[in-house]
């Protein structure tokens, strides 16, 4: 009995120590998590200047507007399909319309519309052409051809100046890039001061690039077999 009484103060001290240790460990854990979260949060944004943030906001706003329009259209299509199914009617028109839209967008069929033509005279490298294509896409081009070849997913214009090719099709020193989209937006984006036309012009001083709006043109379908062999739908 007396031994048990004598051990009590030691037990109490041990309990206090353990509790203190547990509290410190819990605090350590919380701080470590806070530190990790702090490092993971929005990397990059804080490094952007006010001008870059404004540019980012403009891009996000315009992208979100397009996404909202797409979502509205899809919701309309969904509602119509639901209604059609409930009435037991066939959905041939809807399916055909959807198929035509996807095929045209992905380059499986031809596209007609307004846009611009970039005429290139003189030697230019594949990287210069790819920069032009990238800027056209950024400006909202809906369909593009390079020297008559439709640019779809996976198509790359490559080669040194004088040795350009696209899809095993050799491109000479004089060719056209055609793009369907808003002529004003496409022209404005390409030809702005310090824009891609100026940059490519500086990089390839012997090449002359001109941009001309067109009211109507038809861009052909792609010859490329786009159906994937190795990529399977994820279930």
């Amino acid at each position, binding site marked *: 009995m007396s031994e048990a009484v004598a051990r009590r103060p030691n037990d109490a001290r*041990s309990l206090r*120590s353990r509790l203190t240790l547990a509290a*410190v460990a819990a*605090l350590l854990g919380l*701080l470590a998590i806070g530190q990790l979260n702090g490092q993971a949060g929005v990397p990059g944004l*804080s*490094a952007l200047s006010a001008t870059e*943030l*404004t540019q980012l906001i403009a*891009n*996000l*706003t*315009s*992208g*979100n507007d*397009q*996404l909202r329009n*797409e*979502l509205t259209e*899809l919701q309309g*299509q969904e509602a119509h*399909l639901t209604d059609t199914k409930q009435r037991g009617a*066939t*959905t041939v028109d809807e399916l*055909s319309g*959807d*198929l*035509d*839209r996807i*095929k*045209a*967008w*992905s*380059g*499986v*069929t*031809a*596209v*007609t*519309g307004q*846009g611009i033509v970039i005429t290139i005279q003189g030697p230019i490298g594949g*990287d210069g052409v790819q920069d032009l294509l*990238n800027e056209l*896409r950024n400006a909202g081009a809906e369909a593009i051809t390079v020297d008559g070849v439709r640019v*779809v*997913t*996976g*198509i790359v214009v*490559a080669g040194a100046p004088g040795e350009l090719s696209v899809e095993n099709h050799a491109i000479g020193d004089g060719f056209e890039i055609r793009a*369907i989209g*808003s002529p004003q937006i496409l022209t404005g984006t390409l030809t702005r001061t310090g824009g891609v036309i100026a940059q490519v012009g500086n990089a390839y001083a012997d090449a002359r690039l001109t941009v001309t709006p067109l009211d109507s043109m*038809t861009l*052909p379908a792609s010859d490329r077999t*786009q*159906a*994937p062999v*190795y*990529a*399977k739908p*994820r279930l």
Partner: protein
Amino acid sequence: MTFVLSRIRRLPSVQVTLAIALLVLGFLVAAQIAAEGPRVRYTTQERSPLIETALSLQSQQESLKAAIVEVRGHIAELEALDPNAADSLRRLYADLEQARLTAGLIPVQGPGVAFRLEDGTSGSVDALVSARDVQTLIEELWLAGAEGVGVNGERIVGGTAVIDIGGSILVNSAYLSGPYTVTAIGPPDLYERLQQSVAFAQFVHGRIEAAGVQLSVAELQQADLPAFAGTVGLRYGQPGEGQ
């Protein structure tokens, strides 16, 4: 020295553990305060509302993309093959499914490679990964036979632009910051094909190694690519004649 060691040995182990834990706690508190510094600085400046707006727009974009993928999935279910459908309708269903797969509107998986591009540690501007670097890698993957490519969860399609914004990039209008993981699905020898490319070797030696950008690669038995979640449609064009 011997005196100090003997004193330490006499200390209860709990006290030693507590001392070490408190030492680590001190370091963590200091690190936390140091990490808060830049955040406090920029929130007091004019960029703060811009950052908040950008964050809000990013969040909206993610929600919109998720909603688009969900509605597209529901539409595909509604359009799914009806066992009682006529042959012409069955063909239409199959064509539509194939068109969606080809256009990148369906998530896919298959053998592939994943590259990780990361800013170098030298602090030089040249050592920062640029949109051009990501673009070059994507182009080389296409030329080597890739069937599908994605960057940090964004599917690359015919209309995808990759542009610089500060030290980060925009892909499909989505703001992505490094490190960038470029994933591709293709033939099992995709990486071998890539290594045989003169242009890829020039990119690795002339740009990546020369500037100190970090590039690593993993061959994957099964790579995953998300569906493209952007706009699919024509505003200025319309389907023309000809296949």
